[in-house]
C-alpha cells in the first residue's frame, strides 16, 4: 500500500523532513475500545480481515477462545480473553481486550525503521506502514512497546492495523468499529472520544467499578487507540496490557546517540588518518634498509 494522498503526512521514518504545522489543540482522530461493552464476538476480527483482504489460516483449538492464538501478519486485531478471579468481590470476570496497534503519538516502530517512508504518521495521528518502502528488516518489531507488528514470511514485509487509514481518508471509520454490534468500538476525533470515555467511566464507577478509567498512556505521548478499562489501575490484567509503556531505552540509544556517534567516529577516524599522513608523511623503505637486508641474506648464503 502506498502513502495515502487523502491524508496529511506528519512524520515519516528515516527522514528529517520538517513536519507540516498542525492546528493548535487538534489531537487528531482516535478509536475508543470500551472493554466493558465487549462481548468477544470477534466481528471486529472478521471485518478487519475482510476489509483489508487478509486471509488467516484455519487454526486449531488449544482450549482458549483466542483464535488465532496471537496477532499475525494477517490478523491485525485479536480478541484476547482473560479469566480473572477478582479477589475483592469473589467474582470471576471475563476480561476481553481487542488487541492491535495503539497508534502511539510517539511511535517506536517509526523511530526504529531504517527505510525512508516505510512507516508514516499522518497529521490525524494514524501510524501506517507503507509496504512498497518496507524492506522487511523487522526493526519496527523491536521498536514497538506493545509487541504489535508481525512479519509476513510470504510477502517479506511487516503488517499491522492501519486504523483503516484508507477509510478514514474518505470520511469513514474503521471497519472494526462499523462491525461491532455492541458499540464497544467508537471512532471520532480524539477530543470526542475522551469525552465519550469520560461518560463511560462515570457510568462504570456508578456500577461499582471504582477504578474504571481511560487508557491513554503518556509514556508514548498518548495513543490514538484508547481503552476504557473497568480496572484501569491494573491494565496488566487484560492479557498483559503494559501499565506504563514507553520506547525501550535500548531502541532510543540505538536510534539516537549511537546513530550520530557511529557516523561521527567513522568520519573522525578517516580524517585522523588523512591528517596523520600529511603530518608524518609516507613511511618508506630506504636504500640502506634494502642493502642491509641484502647483506643479511648474503651472510646466510655464505
Amino acid at each position, binding site marked *: 500500500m502506498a502513502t495515502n494522498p487523502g491524508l496529511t503526512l506528519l512524520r515519516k521514518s528515516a527522514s528529517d523532513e520538517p513536519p507540516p504545522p498542525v492546528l493548535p489543540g487538534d489531537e487528531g482522530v482516535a478509536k475508543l475500545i470500551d472493554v466493558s461493552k465487549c462481548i468477544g464476538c470477534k466481528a471486529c476480527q472478521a471485518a478487519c480481515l475482510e476489509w483489508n483482504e487478509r486471509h488467516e489460516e484455519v487454526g486449531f483449538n488449544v482450549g482458549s477462545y483466542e483464535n488465532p492464538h496471537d496477532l499475525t501478519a494477517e490478523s491485525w486485531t485479536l480478541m484476547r480473553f482473560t479469566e480473572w478471579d477478582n479477589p475483592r468481590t469473589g467474582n470471576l470476570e471475563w476480561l476481553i481486550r481487542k488487541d492491535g496497534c495503539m497508534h502511539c503519538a510517539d511511535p517506536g516502530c517509526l523511530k526504529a525503521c531504517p*527505510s525512508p517512508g516505510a512507516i508514516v504518521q499522518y497529521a490525524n495521528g494514524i501510524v501506517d506502514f507503507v509496504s512498497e518502502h518496507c524492506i522487511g528488516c523487522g526493526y519496527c518489531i523491536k521498536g514497538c512497546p506493545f509487541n504489535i507488528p508481525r512479519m509476513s514470511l510470504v510477502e517479506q514485509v511487516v503488517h499491522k492495523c492501519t486504523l483503516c487509514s484508507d477509510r478514514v481518508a474518505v470520511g469513514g471509520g474503521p471497519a472494526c468499529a462499523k462491525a461491532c454490534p455492541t458499540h464497544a468500538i467508537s471512532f471520532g476525533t480524539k477530543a470526542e472520544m475522551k469525552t465519550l470515555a469520560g461518560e463511560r467511566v462515570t457510568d462504570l464507577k456508578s456500577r461499582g467499578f471504582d477504578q474504571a478509567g481511560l487508557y491513554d498512556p503518556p509514556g508514548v505521548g498518548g495513543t490514538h487507540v484508547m481503552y476504557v478499562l473497568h480496572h484501569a489501575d491494573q491494565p496488566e490484567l487484560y492479557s498483559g496490557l503494559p501499565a506504563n509503556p514507553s520506547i*525501550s531505552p535500548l531502541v532510543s540509544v540505538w536510534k539516537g546517540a549511537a546513530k550520530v556517534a557511529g557516523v561521527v567516529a567513522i568520519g573522525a577516524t578517516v580524517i585522523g588518518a588523512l591528517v596523520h599522513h600529511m603530518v608524518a608523511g609516507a*613511511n618508506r623503505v630506504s636504500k640502506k634498509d634494502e642493502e642491509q637486508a641484502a647483506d643479511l641474506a648474503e651472510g646466510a648464503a655464505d
Partner: protein
Amino acid sequence: MTSSVHHGTSGDEVVVDRYNAPARANHWVTAISLILLALSGMSMFHPSLFFLTDLFGGGQWTRIIHPWIGVVLFFSFTGLFLRFWRANLWEHTDSVWLGSAGAVLSGHEERLPEIGRYNAGQKLVFWGMTLLIVVLFTSGLTIWDRYFFAYTSIETKRVAVVMHAAAAVCAILIWIVHVYAAIWVRGTVRAMTTGSVTGGWAWRHHRRWLREEVAKGRTE
C-alpha cells in the same frame, strides 16, 4: 638462499615471501565481504546512508543479502584466524612497542625493538577483529528474523541490535586503521597482492621475522 628469502626477478634486490596464494585468496574473500557488509550495514544504520541500498538492488535485497555475506565473512575469517593466530600471540616486545606509540606514529622504527612477523598494532587488529566478528555473528543471527525470529525474545533482540551496531562501528574503525596502515607503510600492499615484500621492508618493519626467515633458509 632458499625458500622464502630470495632474489627478485630484477636481480640484486632481496625479496621475502610473506603470504602464499591460499592465504591471499582467503584475505581478499574476507576483505570483499567486510566491505560489502559495511556498505549494506551502514545503509540500514543511518537514514542519510540509505542510498547505499541501491548498490545491492534496493532495500529488500540489501536486507536479504547482508546476513548471507556475514556468513561468508564468518567462515572466511575463521580461515584467517586458523592461519594466523599463532603468529599473533602477545609477547613482551609488543608491550614495549605499544609503549612507544610516539616513535611508531612518527615512523622512527629505529627506536623500537626488533619485531617478529607481526607488530603489536597488527596483533590488536587481529584480536580486535576476532572478538568483534564473534559478537557480530552471534548478534547478527539473533536479529536475522527470517530464520531465527522464534528463538529469542524481543528484548534480547533489542540488546542484540544495539550490540551489532556498536560492534560494527568498532570493526569499521579497525578496518580504517588496517587499510590506512597498509597504505602509510609503503610496500605493504604487495604482500597481499603478489605475496612478497622487499628485503628492505622486512628489515625496516619486521627485522626479527627477516632474521628468522634467513636463518630458516640457512638450515635448509
